[in-house]
């Protein structure tokens, strides 16, 4: 199983990446691929925030600081190949990396026709992206957890060996449905991986006001399945933890993975975290930026050169510029769309 048990974990530990071999199942090309996706997601995320300030994007929940957790788990799921995901509202990077084009992303954020998630009905990247194995109906926290458990049960009933990954923040762990979902998944030994992206803030409320326990992962013991805390700023560690969790989930049932991350931006573009976060906290967190950390690792390992890294960044910027222009010039959904699809066929 991943790393360590929930007590005495090596959270944020100095497990120097340069000393370790490539993890099981990974090729150097995978890491370059995922680094490229991560840079693209970050570049889009930053542009989206800027577009909000220009009045072109009504709302965004940034995933800056969460990218390693989101992409590390996605990498493990993609390597496995038989998976479905129920993300939450801070999974911008996950949803981008899962396969959307930058143009599709910008269409969604600007509420244009052709938004792949909901055709402009919902907040950006919310609804469903079935080609990339994603459903996220709402942003009611924890609502996706019971649905993910039911999805896994449906897969089992149909004889499919699918693993379901459900993502949520530390805030969602306070909801009663989190308990109900974990309990049911445990009773039926369903292959569900509960991934808590713990940034220690439920909007403005710090973890100390949300729970008494130090680690969300410790809650798993109450349901009789394993829980682990991993460094969510380290893509490789998140990949390894998820890969092992997938094996466990298929064989024995649910796993809770708590990925310790940092929220670099305010809760959303409508929030100002200077009102509740201690001065300097975000700046210190940014010293462990998952994008630059992965870049350094790949360069140190000789997997990537600085020139190649610069090219990746330039291409991400070019694609973001292009996507911004295309989406900005695109038409919004026609008014006639308002009354469509209240019911299915």
């Amino acid at each position, binding site marked *: 199983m991943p790393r360590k048990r929930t007590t005495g974990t090596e959270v944020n530990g100095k497990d120097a990446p340069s000393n370790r071999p490539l993890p099981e199942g990974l090729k150097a090309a995978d890491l370059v691929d995922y680094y490229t996706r991560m840079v693209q997601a970050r570049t889009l995320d930053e542009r989206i925030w800027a577009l909000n300030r220009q009045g072109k994007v009504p709302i965004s929940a940034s995933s800056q600081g969460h990218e390693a957790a989101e992409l590390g788990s996605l990498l493990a799921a993609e390597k496995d190949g038989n998976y479905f995901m129920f993300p939450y509202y801070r999974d911008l990077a996950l949803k981008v990396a899962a396969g959307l084009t930058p143009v599709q992303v910008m269409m969604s954020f600007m509420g244009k026709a052709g938004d792949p*998630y*909901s*055709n402009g*009905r*919902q907040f950006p990247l*919310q*609804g*469903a992206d*079935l080609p990339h194995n994603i*459903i996220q*109906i*709402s942003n*009611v926290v924890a*609502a996706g*957890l*019971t*649905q*993910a*458990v*039911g*999805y*896994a*049960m*449906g*897969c089992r*009933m*149909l004889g499919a060996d699918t693993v379901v990954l459900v993502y949520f923040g530390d805030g969602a762990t306070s909801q*009663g*449905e989190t308990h*109900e*979902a974990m*309990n*049911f998944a445990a*009773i039926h030994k369903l292959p569900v991986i509960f991934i808590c992206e713990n940034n220690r803030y439920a909007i403005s409320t710090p973890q100390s006001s949300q729970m008494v326990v130090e680690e969300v992962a410790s809650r798993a013991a109450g349901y009789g399945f394993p829980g682990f805390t991993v460094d969510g700023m380290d893509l490789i560690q998140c990949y390894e933890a998820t890969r092992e969790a997938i094996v466990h989930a298929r064989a024995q049932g649910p796993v809770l993975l708590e990925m310790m991350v940092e929220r670099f931006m305010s809760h959303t573009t409508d929030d100002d975290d200077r009102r509740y976060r201690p001065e300097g906290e975000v700046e210190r967190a940014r010293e462990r930026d998952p994008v630059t950390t992965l870049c350094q690792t790949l360069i140190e390992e000789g997997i990537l050169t600085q020139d190649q890294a610069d090219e990746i960044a330039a291409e991400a910027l070019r694609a973001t510029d292009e996507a911004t222009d295309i989406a900005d010039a695109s038409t919004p959904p026609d008014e006639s769309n308002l009354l*469509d*699809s*209240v*019911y*299915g*066929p």
Partner: protein
Amino acid sequence: MVVKSVIEAVREAIREEMERDPKVFVMGEDVGVRGGVFLATQGMSEEFGADRVIDTPLAEASIMGIALGAAFRGMRPIPEVQFSDFVWPSINQLIGEAARACYGTNGAVQVPMVIRIPYGGGIRGGLFHSQNVETHFFHTPGLKVVAPATPYDAKGLLKSAIRDNNPVVFLEHKKTYRLVRGEVPDQEYTLPIGKADIKRPGSNITVVSYGLTLHYCLEAAEELASQGVDVEVVDLRTLTPLDTETILESVKKTGKLAIVHEDNVTGGVGAEIAALVAGQAFEYLDGPISRICGPDVPTMPFAQTLEDAYMPTADKIADGLRKLAAY
């Protein structure tokens, strides 16, 4: 045809659909070995196995959320809410999520799910075993709402609901379960969701109702017939989509409308029907639209006197209809 009770008709519909389609399954509190508290799923655990007749923890939010997730995968879950009064913990999954899933994904996601809910009073159930919950679902686009009154309608509509690709709230009035009996064909049949049924044709007054009070309306209509007033009784059977055509046609024929339901009067189904008729058949009316409904108290109380005072009975309905007939 054989005479059966409502609960027998419900049980037959579930069993037949489970035999027909392996994607159909039941989940809920005590639905397995116990066969449900009303025995709607009696014998099914033995017949279909515990994997398709799932006893759940006593936790309604997860019953609804898990059923919804299975529906996303293409299963056809039938979650049972043991009593309507217990639906509230699950309401986010039902009204917040299931009802919005198709619209919120621009039609990409379907929810083929039937939420069976025993509801209603007159059985000394008090505040938490008697509730009428239909208006909350009636108000919610994305849900279909079915409320049959007879064994024949219950079976045919439940089979259609199970085959529907949308979340269908299927309301079964508890007092009708064993009290109401009627002929049910031996051969396979379904009934269309969204079609009302004229249970008693008449020419002087239209009475629109559903569920238990439909039967009280029929009793009242008999009483008025002996006094020379010919009452047409329209059984909605489905609340959403509402069969506006049948309601309007009937009112255009009779010129008078009364709506009867056990649910609270304010903001109820009757209010919407009154608005429909006032808006689209105004010139045909020759009397005020009348509502004979439950009063605005939080469900009928436990004490017999108070419960009786709450219920729209055949006598109360007949009184209301006589006043309307006088116009």
